[in-house]
């Protein structure tokens, strides 16, 4: 199945005594925005790092682009935006983009063009030659997103991409993510902003390392007989706690 960018099967992972991921299945086909929602510490970031091959899983398999992870070469096809802004503050935005472009093997002749494209997308073109140390939190977030886009990847993995970004720009970024989706790219996005969850094509609710529910936003609302994803989330959480209490 060449059209599935990510196939994770029965992924489990624990740190010490804590089970962080418990037999998670995840399939991300081409041309889809897949949302991972759940509270902090639910295991979203660990799942993402396992998919990237940076974290070793205890059991289960992860395939990205039909390749079993971890695999170094596949990483060039994945645009990654980490939860915390990992930027070189003494360098300018352009230098940061150039560095990651080179690491992602963007051809030299294409690099300048890609920098303009990525910077334009996140509205940083006029501040490209400013040092990152002078950036605001939102600007850093946007630069991190631009870095994820630098090699024009088919798969984007975005860990909380819109934290600290103002509503107008958030709107803009989501429009652009949808445009990217239309060209056949896929995105795996974590969020705990519920109105963003509504914009995803498909959702997975994670809590305490367990996939509580999944489906399209509409299907989930129907399943739980509520009006918003937020209510789905709360209801699913209560049911989980009730089950834990019964055990």
């Amino acid at each position, binding site marked *: 199945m060449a059209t599935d960018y990510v196939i994770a099967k029965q992924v489990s992972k624990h740190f010490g005594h804590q089970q962080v991921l418990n037999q998670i299945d995840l399939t991300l086909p081409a041309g889809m925005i897949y949302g991972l929602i759940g509270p902090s510490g639910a295991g979203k970031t660990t799942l993402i790092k396992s998919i*990237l*091959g*940076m*974290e*070793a899983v205890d059991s289960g398999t992860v395939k990205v682009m039909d390749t079993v992870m*971890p*695999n*170094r*070469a596949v*990483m*060039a096809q*994945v645009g*990654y935006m*980490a939860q*915390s*802004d*990992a*930027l*070189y*503050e*003494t*360098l300018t935005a352009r*230098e940061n983009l150039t*560095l*990651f472009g*080179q*690491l*992602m*093997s963007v051809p030299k002749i294409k690099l300048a063009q890609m920098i303009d494209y990525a910077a334009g997308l996140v509205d940083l073109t006029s501040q490209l030659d400013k040092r990152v140390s002078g950036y605001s939190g939102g600007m850093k977030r946007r630069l991190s997103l631009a870095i994820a886009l630098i090699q024009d990847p088919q798969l984007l993995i975005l860990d909380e991409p819109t934290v600290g970004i103002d509503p107008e720009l958030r709107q803009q970024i989501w429009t652009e993510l949808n445009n990217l989706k239309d060209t056949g790219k896929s995105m795996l996005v974590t969020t705990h902003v519920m109105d963003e969850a509504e914009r995803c094509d498909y959702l997975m609710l994670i809590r305490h390392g367990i996939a509580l529910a999944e489906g399209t936003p509409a299907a989930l609302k129907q399943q739980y007989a509520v009006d918003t994803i937020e209510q789905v989330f709360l209801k699913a959480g209560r049911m989980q706690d009730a089950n834990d209490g019964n055990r």
Partner: protein
Amino acid sequence: MRTMAIVRRVFKQMLRDKRTLALMFLAPLLIMTLMYFLFQNNTTQVASLGVHHVDQSVVNVIDTKNVTIHHYDSSQARKMIKQHDLDGYLTQKNGQLTITYSNSNPTNTSLIKASLQSGLVKLKMKTLVTVTKKQRAALESQQAALKKLTAAQTQATVTKLKTAIAQAQARGDQATAEKLQKQLKQATATTSSSTQSAKATSYTTKSHYIYGSSDSTFFENFSPAFLGFFVFFFVFLISGVSLLNERTTGTLSRLLATPIRRSEIIMGYLIGYGGFAIIQTVLTVVFTIVVFKIHLVGSIWLVFLTNLLLALVALTLGIFISTFTNSEFQMIQFIPLIVVPQIFFAGLVPVDGMASWLQAIAHIMPLYYGANALTAVVTKGAGLGDIGVNLLILVGFMVVLTMLNIVGMKRYRKV
């Protein structure tokens, strides 16, 4: 390609961090300058010695340029030393000299010890000389008497022989005459040789220095070791802290989310910071040689090479140690543990004279090999063949640490 991207980044970051640059390039020069003036005049140390009731002849010989004598009226050494801040106190009872050292400064104690010892030896020599003089006079008079006696004896033999020769010649016996002539020659020869009496030989010393000269200072002997130490110290600190920063800000983990190899990151660091280590080495070495006129016997290129290898070991060690730390503060804690002990084994204290277990420790210290090689090149003019083993060991340290670093990064990415 990816390695070079890392190298370029390291260069840009360093060039923008003016304070770190200054620390790396100017601090060694500053400390070397300070050391130069500290260790320049090491002969002007003067110890003060109090004396009480000591023979003038003894005082005269102890009084050297390194010891100043103060006369006091008390035999209570302890009290006088404390009261007058003396380094030693000398008292005499009949033939017995008693010295009390303050010993708050061991250098001054040994200064007094040395001049007391040499003074007493001088005194002994003087008495010996007077005794010898008397003996010599007696010997000379005996010799004169002996000389007279032999002269008289020779005279008798000579006249006897001469008459015998004359008789033999008169008889026409040529053979006997010649034989007697020889005897005569011998007899006269003995008289001339016995007049050459043995003259006393007096020794004078003339000093030659294989390495350095008579005005070689402490600084000159130890500057090569310190050169190595500074390069080691600053490179260790800067590389360790910068990789640590990379870890704590998350950029290392971000880097590893790209297809870069772990070895490419380490190599990028080696080349990037290695470049700055080269500049630092050249600056420090040239500064020491030109400004302080250090006598460099060997090749300057070997000095550069050794320092570069030391820097690379420090670089890999810094990166390695930073793996075990979570903050800059913890990184600093490793300095007294990892870096400072190395200076003790860099040649300040001769390693050959250490206890065997200490010698064993010396052999696991990279600076021991580096400083030894540097000292050998600078002061003895050692060539590549002489220090080759040391350099190879440094390369070994570097290779092993690099491997460990590459494996250690598996913590952040499995491939």
